[in-house]
């Protein structure tokens, strides 16, 4: 018994999951990119700048978690940008510069954005509307409501406590960085180490198999979109705190990067594959890239071109990686494959 246990462990150690390799490679690429930038421009890369990159990455780190869960199911959430803006507008409108209101304003914001996510999930799970259409439609409608309610007015004051949260430091470490670490730990645990998280992988891999096994597909789909709404709302509130105000379009620049982060992190857009570590690495990479583009003072157009190009290159590298893996698998003996399967099941 003890012997099999240790063998399983050793095989797990040997066969590092390809997603982890992708994530590490993306983080390495980030470091290389930063070093190259440093070589070109010695003033770049001060501690302050790195802290700033990490601080601003929090929005993407959080928002892309929800996107990652939805993509894990083979869906996509195009409402993240709008939900982030709406969350910022609600928290700014409700607190209006007072800290006391935060106690009830935060739950209200989270709940309303959770509701938007639930509507997405219900449409996808029960009405069988394709995810990208459902979420785009809900985003458009929600934006219309927000535009109607606010009459287009934008700037409002956010509670000072939120602003302080985004700018203060503990022992020289910015609070957002600590928040990122906590969120990363919690998110990874939820996605990869809980039964519910593993069920998402099962549904994403094969919905037919998941149905036969009897997994609650509809409920988990609704939950995934709900969590995505929650994450976007959290990111939106923090964004409002960071920029000490809210506008109706402040979340828009985060929609495409949230998808890009997931794709760069090695997740499959058809679902069933990808870990949060990868998405996290993708988010950090994009944040660093965004800062570098700003430092190089490239225009928005070039920013888009680079971002789109990176998505496509990441997709191409992914298919190449799968191809190599397939070749490697073919060479593995049946014994090796069986052991690998054993180690996979022991994880579940």
């Amino acid at each position: 018994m003890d012997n099999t246990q240790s063998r399983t462990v050793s095989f797990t150690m040997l066969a590092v999951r390809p997603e982890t390799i992708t994530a590490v490679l993306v983080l390495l690429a980030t470091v290389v990119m930063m070093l190259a930038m440093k070589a070109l421009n010695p003033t770049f890369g001060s501690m302050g700048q790195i802290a700033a990159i990490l601080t601003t990455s929090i929005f993407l780190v959080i928002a892309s978690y929800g996107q990652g869960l939805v993509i894990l199911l083979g869906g996509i959430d195009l409402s993240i940008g709008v939900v982030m803006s709406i969350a910022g507008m609600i928290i700014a409108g409700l607190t209006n510069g007072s800290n006391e209101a935060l106690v009830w304003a935060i739950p209200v914001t989270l709940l309303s954005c959770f509701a938007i996510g639930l509507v997405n999930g219900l449409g996808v799970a029960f009405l069988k509307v394709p995810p990208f259409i459902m979420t785009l439609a809900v985003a458009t409608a929600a934006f219309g409501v927000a535009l109607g309610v606010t009459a287009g007015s934008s700037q409002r004051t956010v509670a000072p406590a939120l602003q302080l949260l985004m700018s203060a430091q503990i022992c020289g470490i910015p609070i957002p960085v600590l928040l990122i670490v906590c969120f990363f730990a919690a998110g990874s645990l939820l996605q990869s180490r809980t039964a519910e998280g593993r069920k998402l992988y099962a549904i994403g891999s094969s919905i037919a198999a998941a149905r036969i096994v009897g997994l609650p597909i509809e409920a988990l789909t609704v939950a995934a979109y709900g969590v995505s709404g929650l994450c976007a709302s959290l990111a939106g509130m923090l964004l409002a705190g960071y920029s000490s105000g809210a506008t109706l379009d402040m979340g828009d620049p985060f929609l495409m990067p949230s998808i890009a982060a997931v794709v760069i992190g090695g997740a499959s857009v058809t679902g069933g594959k990808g870990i949060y570590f990868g998405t996290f690495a993708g988010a950090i990479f994009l944040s660093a890239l965004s800062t570098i583009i700003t430092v190089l003072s490239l225009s928005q157009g070039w920013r888009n071109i680079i971002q789109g190009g990176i998505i496509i290159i990441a997709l191409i590298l992914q298919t190449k990686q799968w191809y190599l893996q397939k070749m490697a698998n073919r060479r593995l003996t049946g014994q090796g494959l069986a052991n690998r399967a054993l180690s996979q099941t022991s994880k579940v």
Partner: protein
Amino acid sequence: MNQTSRDRRRPLPSSLFAALLYVVMFVIYSINAPSAITLLGITDLLNNTIVLAIAAAGLTLVILAAELDLSSVGVIAVSNVIVATVSTKIPAGPFVSLLLVCSVGLLVGLINGWLVAFLGLQSLACTLGTMIMCQGVALVILDAPGGEVAAFIMNRLTDTVFGIIPVAGVILAAVVSGWLLLRRTRLGIAIYAVGTDAVASHLTGINVKRTKLGVFGLAGIAYGLAGYMLSAQTGTGDPRVSNSFLLYVFAAVAIGGTSLGGGRGGVIGGVIGAGILTVMQKLLFAVGVADFYTNIFSGLIMVVAILFGNLSAILTLRQRVPLIRRPNREYSVH
């Protein structure tokens, strides 16, 4: 007699429900805005429809082959800024720019097709990439709204031929007849086959990869044309085409009865779907609904369109089943 009974056995076209809906919407619209049934009103309506209609026609081809394409907004933006920067600057600007936007559309379409068919990328994700890149290219060409579209394009393409036929109508007719021709070619048949079952069509000897490449290429040309027509409407260049336009293009295709799963539907449905959405917008405007509520409506309409599309698919399938089982059944009244 033989001929007619064979015709009756054919399933109802999936765009039939959309056509009925269009008639109903148009009647309601013309009751609310009597000027709609004048020549000017019809020309205006067609002018407003054509950009969406051509884009929807292109997207329909891709969707029929069971792929998705988000690059339409990107290509339209690029074409728009190309026309706005080039058409007044060079000799024979209107024609050269038309050629230019078609080639750019074709190029982007072929890149999409190559990525999807030959590298095996997921179409939704990689066309998202090309869409973002195209929007970037548009911003690089023209970083703020501006530029100038040649007066020839603006005047001629929004006018009428011989004073009675709107030019937009002629172009729409050309698009539809192009589709009717395409449907009878090998490529046209291959599109349906690939969309229904790629593996089976590969086994019957259809070149699946080349079909998908062709579909994306044709769609790219259509988006380029749509961008050209958009420039004719607006008379200026704007690098930012809103993402809600993307929603409308998909809505038009879905309302037209084209299944998003591929293999069922057609371009005519997409064109009618574009017409429905345009009439709806004009109707909302005529009734006096506030501007921002149209956002809410378009979101709703989109979801309803998909449900409607699913429903019409079910209805046409129901229609088909008894016809297959009882081939001699006669219908006296339709």
